[in-house]
């Protein structure tokens, strides 16, 4: 055989191998796209105990399908601009499920997906309305006058405002990646500021489309807003085992399923807490006609930041000690989502359980 024939054969073999590997990826994609899983739903069995507008209040059930009645109550408050199931992602990777298994009666707020009329929803509607009534419902169901509250991201902001207005109803407060100092540069507030959040009208609000909200997050993750970049990432990932890809799909279903946002709420958040306003640090924030006094937050507080958080920079989160000096501050390695639902999230879950289990001194 001549050298050129050898080369041709080698090239053909290489092409054949390339074709085989490509086909394996395409077949794996088919398998992933046709296999059911926890896509868009929580992982832990639950019952709906309260509904209001789009909100559902979920109560997690144990292995026998029963609520954990008689245990200390914990209410998870996720961000209203994303889906709730980030705190209950997958069996074995569920923050709420972990807390429930540790002996708590866990409730999770699902704010649902706002529609056109919800563009008028403002801070009082969320804090004084939806969150307050959810806490009240949990108290009524469990018979506990004060319950534990765990807020994530913007859900943490709502929880903090609520705890300041109704401190007697909150036993312990956990704030996860919750920005307090709006003047710290970086993060979603600054991106939203640069991309037009300051233009949202309070008086004449719109329902901010999901794609627009998502574009703010994409600005924080270079490459994620490019079609070529995303396709290239997915193609690379298709070498992973199908089981791993299903996990990735669950996470993608959370990351890519941003919900539309009420324009009035965004306008108010920007006016009160945005860059330059910084109402939580300056003590000027209000909910409706009530001034928020953070000095009223006397219950134990745990504030958790993430070292590589591009959405809520850790400096802006840790600043809580300047306004709530007794708050315990914990900074964990990882990103905004990773510390809550990633592979290393177990350390946060465990610390949260310890914090919630500590008797009040």
């Amino acid at each position: 055989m001549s050298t050129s024939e050898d080369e041709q054969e080698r090239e053909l073999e290489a092409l054949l191998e390339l074709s085989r590997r490509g086909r394996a990826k395409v077949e794996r994609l088919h398998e992933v796209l046709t296999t059911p899983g926890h896509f868009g739903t929580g992982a832990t069995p639950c019952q709906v105990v309260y509904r209001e507008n789009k909100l559902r209040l979920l109560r997690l059930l144990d292995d026998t399908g029963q609520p954990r009645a008689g245990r200390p109550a914990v209410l998870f408050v996720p961000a209203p601009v994303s889906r709730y199931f980030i705190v209950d992602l997958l069996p074995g990777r569920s923050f709420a499920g972990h807390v429930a298994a540790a002996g708590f009666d866990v409730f999770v707020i699902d704010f649902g997906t706002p529609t056109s009329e919800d563009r008028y929803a403002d801070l009082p509607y969320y804090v004084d309305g939806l969150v307050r009534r959810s806490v009240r419902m949990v108290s009524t169901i469990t018979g506990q006058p004060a319950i534990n509250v765990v807020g994530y991201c913007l859900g943490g902001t709502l929880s903090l405002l609520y705890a300041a207005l109704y401190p007697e109803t909150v036993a312990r407060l956990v704030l996860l990646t919750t920005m307090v100092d709006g003047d710290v540069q970086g993060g979603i507030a600054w991106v939203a500021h640069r991309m037009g959040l300051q233009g949202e009208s309070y008086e004449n609000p719109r329902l901010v489309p999901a794609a627009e909200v998502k574009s703010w997050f994409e600005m924080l993750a270079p490459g994620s807003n490019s079609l070529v970049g995303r396709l290239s990432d997915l193609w690379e990932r298709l070498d992973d085992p199908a089981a791993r890809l299903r996990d990735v799909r669950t996470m993608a279903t959370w990351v890519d399923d941003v919900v539309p946002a009420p324009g009035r709420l965004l306008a108010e958040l920007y006016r009160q807490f945005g860059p330059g306003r910084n109402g939580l640090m300056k003590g000027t924030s209000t909910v409706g006609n009530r001034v928020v006094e953070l000095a009223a937050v006397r219950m134990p507080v745990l504030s958790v930041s993430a070292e590589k958080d591009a959405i809520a920079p850790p400096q802006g989160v840790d600043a809580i000690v300047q306004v709530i000096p007794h708050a315990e501050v914990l900074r964990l390695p990882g990103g905004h989502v990773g510390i809550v639902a990633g592979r290393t999230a177990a350390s946060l879950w465990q610390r949260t359980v310890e914090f919630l289990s500590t008797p009040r001194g």
Partner: protein
Amino acid sequence: MDGKAAKDTSLIERWLEDQREWQKTAMAYLDSMVKNDDFLVHLGNAMRGSLLAGKPYPTATAPAAPPAQEAPADDRLDRVLFALHEMQGQLNDLRLTLDELRTSGKGSPSTMPATRPASVKRRASLAKAKPTSAKATVAKARTAARSDKRRKARG
């Protein structure tokens, strides 16, 4: 010569086999498209580089789009709908308070009184609604009952 022929045949056979496998893969995709409506949505998302399930990948807004588009000219229906949602919440508050009163049997006020911020009142009045009437009635009844008790205690 024979060995080379065998090798060539083997390579060709493997190519043909690979082509047959590609056909099978294509048929599996076609089959899923026919049998499962959601599959096309999922495949469309994958072609945008996302494994998002259940709904189409959010489409980007036009780059030249203004940051805040104008609200619809007639938004009265949405205002009314939202006022109804607020009223639903207030009615739920009322129901919870009544449940608490019934449970305690002593008429002790709720630990978490239903507050109504001024902005809510303003919006509710915009929608020509009177959501406070029921609550006000309960409050009046409660006040009357208390002063009645006090009078009896004195007398």
